């Protein structure tokens, strides 16, 4: 049965800060830029914003968590932005990625806990080597990995992709199609870090290895910056500047997973289905009715796993499904129409949500998918504790 909240809330404003590798200003200042921009975009007086939600996680385990410099919390935004004199509701979540913060906001609106919710995701790009593991005592599950030098998320993803290639016959050549298509889309997205930098297949094949079989361009580009959204109810949305992008459904990944090497490809279909089945059940829509799909790509293979786990194609078929222009802007299922995290920047899924909003409200300019009526945005690899949204043009 379709979710009773379908179409009752909407995203009505989007704000981007500058996205760069090494900004001159603090992450806190950039986040305030993004929040102000989202409020302006909605055409809303700032003092009407009475709800706040974020997912402030550091970019990787071991990175710093100084508020306003390395993360941006509810506390920070509440103290630094002139919002409603009496904030009515907030949520700061620590699992489910930022799509779960949006879900929190949706639920708060449906519960009439507040009227206008500001959701943001600030991402820090720490100096030094990304994802470095510098401890010399490995606690918990890491004690079975770190002594062998295997601690980084991209090593785990490399293992999963190696297994996928072995199991289904995929090659790097197949993956190059996806990565270069994302770059082509980013070249039409002024917010993208790689907006003015094209990529050929030759560029892809020339990139250095990070963890073979994944190369530099299979990893998302770490940036520092923030994206913010404004949510409200469908009734209130009608009075604002832009057409509303309705929340038709949502889902969280609630699969049980093994602790060690949960990226081993042992359960990506089952785990991804845990999230996707809720998306389709709540919205009453399905993969065949999506005008485009914004599918998490912290590492390039994750999007392929999503195409399968969310039902856009069968298990083991994604690497061939994405060929022949099928996922291009002009294709039958445009995928990561904004360039994804690979080419827009590592925003932990916020870019995917913002793009779904842009597409269903005809605001995507040169990358607009004509008449986009429903777009899903899925946050997190299928093996991760992620979450997702179905966003629609009509309620």
């Amino acid at each position: 049965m379709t979710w009773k909240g379908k179409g009752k809330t909407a995203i009505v404003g989007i704000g981007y800060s500058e996205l760069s590798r090494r900004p001159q200003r603090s992450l806190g200042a950039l986040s305030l830029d993004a929040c102000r921009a989202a409020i302006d975009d909605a055409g809303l007086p700032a003092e009407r914003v009475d709800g706040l939600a974020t997912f402030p996680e550091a970019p990787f385990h071991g990175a710093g968590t100084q508020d306003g410099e390395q993360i941006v919390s509810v506390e920070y935004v509440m103290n630094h932005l002139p919002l409603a004199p009496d904030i009515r509701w907030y949520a700061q979540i620590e699992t489910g990625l930022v799509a779960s913060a949006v879900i929190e906001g949706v639920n708060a609106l449906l519960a009439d806990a507040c009227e206008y919710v500001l959701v943001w995701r600030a991402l820090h790009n720490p100096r030094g080597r990304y994802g470095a593991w510098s401890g010399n005592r490995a606690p918990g599950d890491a004690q079975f990995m770190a002594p062998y030098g295997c601690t980084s998320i991209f090593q785990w993803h490399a293992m999963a992709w190696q297994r996928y290639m072995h199991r289904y016959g995929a090659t790097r050549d197949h993956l190059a199609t996806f990565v270069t298509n994302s770059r082509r889309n980013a070249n039409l997205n002024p917010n993208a870090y790689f907006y003015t930098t094209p990529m050929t297949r030759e560029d892809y094949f020339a990139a250095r290895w990070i963890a073979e079989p994944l190369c530099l361009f299979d990893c998302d580009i770490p940036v520092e910056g923030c994206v913010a959204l404004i949510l409200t109810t469908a009734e209130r949305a009608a009075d604002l500047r832009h057409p509303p992008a309705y929340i038709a459904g949502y889902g969280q990944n609630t699969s049980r997973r093994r602790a060690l090497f949960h990226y081993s490809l042992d359960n990506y279909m089952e785990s991804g289905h845990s999230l996707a089945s809720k998306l389709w059940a709540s919205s009453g829509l399905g993969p065949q009715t999506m005008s485009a799909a914004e599918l998490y790509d912290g590492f390039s293979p994750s999007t392929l796993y999503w195409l399968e786990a969310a039902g856009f194609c069968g298990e083991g078929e994604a690497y061939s499904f994405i060929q022949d222009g099928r996922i291009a802007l002009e294709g039958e299922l445009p995928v990561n129409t904004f360039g994804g995290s690979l080419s827009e920047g590592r925003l932990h899924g916020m870019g995917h949500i913002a793009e779904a909003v842009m597409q269903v409200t005809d605001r995507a300019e040169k990358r607009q998918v004509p008449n986009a009526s429903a777009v899903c945005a899925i946050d997190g690899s299928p093996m991760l504790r992620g979450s997702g949204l179905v966003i629609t043009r009509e309620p």
Partner: protein
Amino acid sequence: MSTTQEKPRPLIDDLTRPFWEAAREQRLVIQRCQDCHYFNHPPRPVCQACHGAALTFEPVSGRGTIYSFSVMYQPNVTGFGDELPYLNILVELEEQPQLFLVSDLPAAQRERVRVGGKVEVYFEDVDAELTLPKFCLVA
């Protein structure tokens, strides 16, 4: 190798101590549920399959296959900088599907790595306190 920093060592806790103590005695043991017989690795306070608490460590064959592998090119882990690029394998033990252990391969075998390759355990003494179970290809 004089600049080499020490590699990470396990911070052994009550749950994992039997695994590491057995390794020092050149034995590979894995926590197993006495009710449903599921092997849990890493060790857990309750069985991941049935949530039972009757868990003991049992010897396993030490034989398995290479489920997957990757080659690391980044000096992200303390003490491994001099070995770049280095290989890691994910071993699936023969006792149970998806019963995984991480390892490397002896340098002389790295060219022969492949998914599905048969491996067996051996034990590498790091020092008097620590022995790491590792895997090598079988002939």
